[in-house]
């Protein structure tokens, strides 16, 4: 079981830590949403993982 696998990992599962996010994460996510909204207004733009099929290393892309 990989958690905790690094010094400094908290005992709380990562999903719980995200849900209990501190203001820093909330602000970061808000800014990311703004960035994504801005991109979506560009003609012809597609979500980045759709433009990047070598993404197989990450998401195993399709729905």
């Amino acid at each position, binding site marked *: 079981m990989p*958690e905790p696998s690094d010094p400094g990992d908290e005992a709380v*599962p990562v999903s719980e830590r995200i849900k209990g*996010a*501190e203001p820093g994460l909330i602000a970061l996510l808000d800014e*990311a949403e703004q960035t994504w909204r801005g991109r979506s207004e560009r003609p012809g733009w597609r979500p980045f993982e759709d433009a*990047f099929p070598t*993404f*197989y290393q990450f998401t195993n892309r399709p729905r």
Partner: protein
Amino acid sequence: MVSPSWTGMRGIAQVPSYVIMQPTTLCNLDCGYCYLPLRARDLRMPVPVAEAVAATVNAWAAVAERFSVVWHGGEPTSAGRAALADLMAPFDGVEHHIQTNATLVDDEWCEFFAGRGVRVGISVDGPRELTARRVARDGRPAYGQIMRGVEALRRHGIPFAALCVVGDPRPGLAAELYAYFLDLGCYALGINVEEREGVNVRDTAFPGAAVRAFWAELTGAWRADPRIELREVEWALRYMGATRAGTDDELLPRRIDPIPAIGYDGSVVLLSPELAGFSDPRYGDFSSGNVLRRPLREIVAGVAAQPDGWIGEYLTGVEACRASCPYFGFCGGAHAANRYFEHGRFDGTETDHCRNSKIRLLEGVLDYARAE
């Protein structure tokens, strides 16, 4: 504690969203971390292989919103424009992508890409000193040639993505890399922390704290100037946003994309193209068939319906990840090639790649946010 509720990545999809085509095994470079076993040999894909693949792919593409054919695995431009044009010709209604080291890209190649709407991804690892392991066959650095290719793409206004291999993830490096790629002008960037796979057997057990600090620093660099679509960090942020919204279980695909990789000779390796060209007494050559003898749709559907051999073992491994790893909802399970090349089998769980590129990524982004 592990969430028991992840519902994605169960079994293998009968239809992929893209295929990978190997027009030649040859690469004109000899990079220090390359996993390809046949890159010094020029084994060419004959047109009948492309025709056989297209017979299935064109039907898939006709009913898909989009379908990609990715030319990769060896340096595709080494095959030459005429050969690549002949191989692309049978395809209809698809989007072509090429992953290239850019060293052979010139005005003629740019006209080729533009004329066919080919989407371009280049491979470069940062400034000259960080790209030092990208070398020609005579050992000379390839950086100058890569930059000439980039200049050609710029001259022709061809957008390009970039893949960057990081062999020494550590604090201090990420900001330098991100600034470099901003200047380079790529629209998207993927960071591949070096992996131990194929013929690359370098130890990739990097210090965890350094890797986390690398990702944290990269997050900050992106936040300061998010012009580049930064694959890993943005996916982590998307996952975090979905977790907070309670929709995280919808992010993973319902079924695993089989990702057919078609070798030069028509052999089909599913799930991890890095396995192509290898064999093992336990698993054979990892091939699920050959398009010259059986239609690709039958090969894929057959495996999806009855996954056995190494693929069945891999699916057991995915379930082990689901059952044991709190990061499964973000990751979807360790990749087949990483399991094999690190563990020697497919039903193990956590790999160096998991640690470096999934777990420490997520934790690094959290570290950054926590410090803000």
